């Protein structure tokens, strides 16, 4: 059950669109960061396959310039 955190870099002037697009994805939690140029994103998925699908979904967001992984944890399944 992977939990990962990322720094999401929006394209110039598209931060609001990126917040919306990421917030619309159920497995994503979006938070503002002190560095106002970037967002903190935490993903929480059931398994590696769902994680992979989620990643593909995020990668398609037009306002996203780059998603940089910060940490990845794998908690035991219930």
């Amino acid at each position, binding site marked *: 059950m992977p939990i990962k*955190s990322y*720094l999401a870099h929006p394209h110039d002037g598209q931060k609001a669109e990126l917040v919306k697009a990421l917030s619309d994805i159920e497995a994503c939690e979006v938070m503002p*960061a002190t560095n106002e140029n970037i967002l903190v994103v935490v993903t929480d998925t059931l398994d590696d396959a769902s994680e992979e699908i989620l990643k593909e979904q995020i990668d398609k967001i037009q306002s996203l310039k780059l998603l*940089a992984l910060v940490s990845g944890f794998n908690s035991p399944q219930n």
Partner: protein
Amino acid sequence: MYNSLSTRRSFIKKMAKLSAMTAAASMFPGILFASEQEQGIPNGADLEWKKGPCRFCGVGCGILVGTENGKAVAVKGDPNSAVNKGLLCVKGYHQTMCIQSKDRLTHALVKKNGKYVQTPIQEALDIVANKMKETIDAHGKDSVAMYTSGQSTIPEGYVASKFMKGAIGTNNLDCNARLCMASAVTGFLTTFGADEPMGCYEDIDHADYFITWGNNMAEMHPVLFSRMLEQKSKRGAKIIDFATRTSRSSTASDRSILFEPQTDLAVANAICYEIINNGWVNNSFVEKHCNFSKGLTNIGYGVEDKFKFADKPEKIDFSAYKAFLKEYSPEKVAKYSGVSVKDIKYLASIYGDPNKKVVSYWCMGMNQHTRGTWMNNLVYNIHLLTGKISQPGNGPFSLTGQPSACGTAREVGTFTHKLPKGVVTNPKNRELAAKIWKVPVERIPSKPTYHATEMFRAVDRGDIKFIWTQVTNPLVSLPKTSRYRPGMEKKSCFVVVSDVFPTPTSDVADVILPASWHIEKSGLYGNSERRTQHWDKMVEGPGETTPDAWMTIQVAKRMGYGDLFPYSEENHVEEIYNEYRQFHEGAKHGMAPLEVLKKESGAIWPYVNGKSTQWRFNAKYDPACSNGEAFDFYGKPDGRAVIWQRPYEPPAESPDSEYPYWLNTGRVIEHWHTGSMTRRIPVLHKAMPSAYIEFHPDDAKALAIRNGEQIKVTSRRGSCVLPASINERGLPTKGQVFVPFFDENMLINDVTLDAFCPISKEPDYKKCAVKIEKV
């Protein structure tokens, strides 16, 4: 205590958030990070705060350690430190958490019948001294060696140098700074005749442009990068990232320019070509303050044992230099560098604009390079041609990776060729050392012996029969460990390892000595900006842990050199520093008195008339300038810096049909170097539990590799298996893979090549050829 899975999951999620928040904050100085530091302090704690420098990288952030009942319970950034102004990165903030690790080395261990036996420290030191003496008696003084560190404190490095060179009389002393900083040293010496940067971190507050050369500062020097981002935000300063891999630094920069490995040599020359071609040369500066020289070419790569090289500098004139640069027009260089003509011209225009202040930063990308000395020379050429040097906001700045790579390795001189002042080949330098050490000058040998790589080759060959390593983990950090691990395991060499934790290096030791950690002893470090910082012992170490300096002194005394080491156990740090300061007396390198360093968060040398010198070689700031001009490069006899003619030459090994990928190695923000400390800090270990191999998505697709799949990476030296990482932390260029080296369970240095810069002898960890297979 019962922990439900949901509680655990919620905890993990919180930790994931915290890691990302901290990473975000470390890329920008802000309230959140400061408040996070405060949040980490236990409620109701009555803490005593003690100042010191951070244990980790070469930035030298000031820290305040909160102690309570003899234990270190909190760390925060020192707001009085001019380096970090209260900020800390994720490693710095958590640093003291490693001390209590369960596998801490608390007592000496001696291998008896193949097993380690806990042994009283005094008995272990007897064994070390007896073995060293026996080895010298049987095989000569050059059969014993010490290998120390850019993490050794100044007193530790000083007594190691005095012990080996002044007492025993061998130059068999080198250190791990050879692996990270040696090219910077030879670059400074060949261009300026004096080591270490001329500027300081305050340059960040003045520069209009920061150009980073192969340097991922967001992860490796995060506090300095934060200061740059602050200037970007406040003043509109620009950051240009010039690298072979897209990293966190690239994404936070205004512009990311990628180049093919090794072609930085050609691009730097192309920038100089453009500067000259466009009439951007600062003619009066160059005429007054520079000479032109060339050296030998096709200088080799040092991959064979006992490789020798000595450059033969030859003076040239400006017209010859200009003619040489014709081969480096942007159009010609663009063809093989992967950098467009437009980008080369853009870089040149930044340096060439007389109204813009520019600082160039670099670290391992330029130094760990088979032409590392040349690369350093070439960036100096750019700054010298434009006169953008030794002024606030203008200058080349070589960053360091270790907390005292400058203070100990370079200033004390724990390299085979060095003395605390000058080099062993210089009779006057030997005379000064002999006078201060009170030894016959004849005892200090005039010829250097083994640099780091050659030292471990000599162990493998059986030429070195006793080696003592302190504060370093060479069997993870050396290149080509696939040769040097079996070499160290051979019975022909007696191995002594002083360390705080067990490592793959201590695994091959005959004697393991339990060292005190950073705050369990007093000490001094010297950071990248020539700042010397002192700290007092803050807590007691466990068991029989002992400061490395004191262990060296104890062994020296046992070997009959007690009269040379008359220091007391309580005050040896102070006594040694006061002796050491004599080497650097004068306006060019005067060190601050200890009483000043005890009060302040460091002082920058030359420390003259109670004042730090922030910009050397500029008469406005540097009292050592004496030529009556605005600048005096007094490291050279004629006061002139050298613009070097250095060509592009290919790397030692390039991808081919059998090994089609470049391998680049490096670091991550969570872990410091070989991970022996940071992997014992739970929050850092959990955030980055293991190494990985990064692919460009196109390469991953072509090889049908998915994230997390086990991949075997193989070179002509060895192989390593790691999980794949695609579009995660960083993005290598197509045809290149990247692996961090912090993980002792995935020894990527079994794969790397021990080719080195023939001038500096620093290995190139950034380029070798590998093949990739799915496991």
